[in-house]
């Protein structure tokens, strides 16, 4: 049982953000995160995608973006985001000083606050990649493991199944 896993490919059109984050939020729910945590995960992934759109593609709406959602073996999520946009030095991707009140500059702070680990890197060919990971809190792991197995219990819907 490896649990849910998926890859979503879409373009840097901001209209794609809402369906993608609905998927991320529900994926985090399947992974066992509580409502507050899964809201933060969806928000942080939204911020990472918005950064690809704004800084990687400079607002161009047809740039390819790939998002991969997977489970950590010990419980939790691993999320990989890749674009083919402009490359920057990963050490330049950092939160700003929040004591200064001005528009913008909050995305990386939100990403770092939400995920236990986040790492940006230049991709080999072109574009940037970021990997985000968050473990389940301990009690949630126990609950996820307590789920009964699915085998032998599927509803029998063969045409001639006896009732």
């Amino acid at each position, binding site marked *: *049982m*490896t*649990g*849910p896993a998926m890859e979503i490919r879409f373009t840097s059109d901001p209209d794609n953000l809402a369906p993608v984050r609905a998927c991320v939020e529900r994926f985090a*729910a*399947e*992974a*066992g995160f509580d409502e507050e945590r899964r809201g933060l995960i969806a928000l942080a992934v939204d911020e990472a995608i918005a950064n690809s759109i704004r800084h990687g593609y400079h607002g161009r709406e047809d740039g390819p973006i790939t998002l991969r959602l997977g*489970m950590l073996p010990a*419980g939790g999520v691993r999320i990989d985001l890749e674009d083919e946009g402009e490359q920057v030095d990963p050490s330049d991707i950092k939160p700003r000083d929040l004591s200064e009140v001005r528009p913008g500059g909050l995305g990386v702070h939100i990403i770092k606050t939400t995920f236990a680990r986040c790492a940006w890197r230049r991709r080999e060919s072109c574009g940037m990649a970021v990997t985000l990971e968050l473990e389940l809190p301990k009690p949630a792991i126990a*609950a*996820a*493991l*307590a*789920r*009964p197995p*699915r085998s*032998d*219990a*599927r*509803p*029998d*819907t063969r045409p001639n199944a006896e*009732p």
Partner: protein
Amino acid sequence: MSTSLEFSREERLPAVVLRPQGEIDLARSPELRLRLRQEVDAKPKRLIIDLIGVGYMDSSGVATLVEALTRARAAGCKLVLAGLQPKVKSIFSISRLDTVFTITGSVDDALTA
């Protein structure tokens, strides 16, 4: 690794009220099936399935309920569905099963339906 369907259960003798909580799709209907078999096998006079906590159901969930209905009838148990949300109600009407099942608004109505 994934969230399971949760059940709460209440005895309002001679009826039993079972309240699943979650979305019932191909991933979750096996849990519902197991639980309904247990409940029907205990042969209560009346089994009320309160769906107030079920925001989504696909045809695998409906198939599970049809199977439970058939088993309940054979066991002399009256099966009643209550508390269907609009989305869940619509899959019963699309499937033309809204007249096959006894469906009530509230659990109280289901006690006497």
